[in-house]
């Protein structure tokens, strides 16, 4: 089952990488109000259904893919109604 995880810096937490990207975009002449840089992880998960896949990936996020102190995550499962 194909699962995509989006990891983002938590709202309100300073994101120096995003600030650098923002500054760079502005210096290239783009009108940008803000930029935050996160991470995307594509997974191929062994699971019978979407519920099981989600449960597994949630644990992966909590244990490794995201650091809950500073990052939030969102899980998208292919074929599952958003």
């Amino acid at each position, binding site marked *: 089952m194909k699962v995509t995880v989006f990891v983002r810096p938590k709202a309100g937490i300073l994101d120096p990488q995003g600030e650098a990207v923002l500054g760079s975009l502005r210096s290239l002449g783009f009108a940008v109000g803000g930029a935050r840089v996160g991470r995307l992880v594509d997974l191929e998960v062994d699971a019978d259904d979407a519920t099981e896949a989600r449960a597994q990936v949630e644990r992966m996020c909590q244990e490794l893919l995201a*650091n809950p102190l*500073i990052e939030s995550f969102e899980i998208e499962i292919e074929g599952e109604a958003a």
Partner: protein
Amino acid sequence: MNIRPRVAVLVFPGSNDDRDAAWALGALGADAQLVWHAETELPRETGAVVLPGGFSYGDYLRCGAIARSATIMAAVRAFASDGGPVLGICNGFQILCEAGLLPGVLRRNRDQEFVCRDVAIRVERADTLFTSRCEQGQTLTIPVKHGEGSWFADEELYGELDAAGQIVLRYAEDCNGSVGDVAGVCDEAGNVLGLMPHPEHAVDPLLGSGDGALLLAALVDAARERVLAMTAR
């Protein structure tokens, strides 16, 4: 008894201060042994463990995130929960935070730059096994070199750690945007410490400062005590 206690210096793929740490510990009276990350056990009669600086696993995912699942880490966890002294320097600090052995997390420096210079650090607690050779309020000069050294904890966690006396070292000057200017923090029991500055690069005044030797020699003292207690059992 003046023995040379064994101190295990872990080596992960991408560690690069392992040899400097081993050299410094050796100069301060320890029998430093490099231990590869894929080992399952620490050497016999290990009195202390050091997680050195570097860029373990290329800093993939987050600094220290992959190293926490290295096989040697189970042994380190057991050693720490048994009261064994564990010191994480720079990347080692990042690994200990990611492993949940220390509170908080190290983030990218506030000003987006790699900081590489001597910094002044204030000893907030002289009654830990890592600072037993320092005085309360003493200022140490020790170099930092990191891009992701800005320690972070939310207000609640920071308040708890501060009240519990777990903030052992603070920058005495602006360094990287760390919450509370935290440079080093210990665990609740006090036998695990992580710090961003590199004491192993400050053990000889000829190279700028010998202040790092105060921290590492205290670690060697603690390792010696542990080994002697083990052999007396």
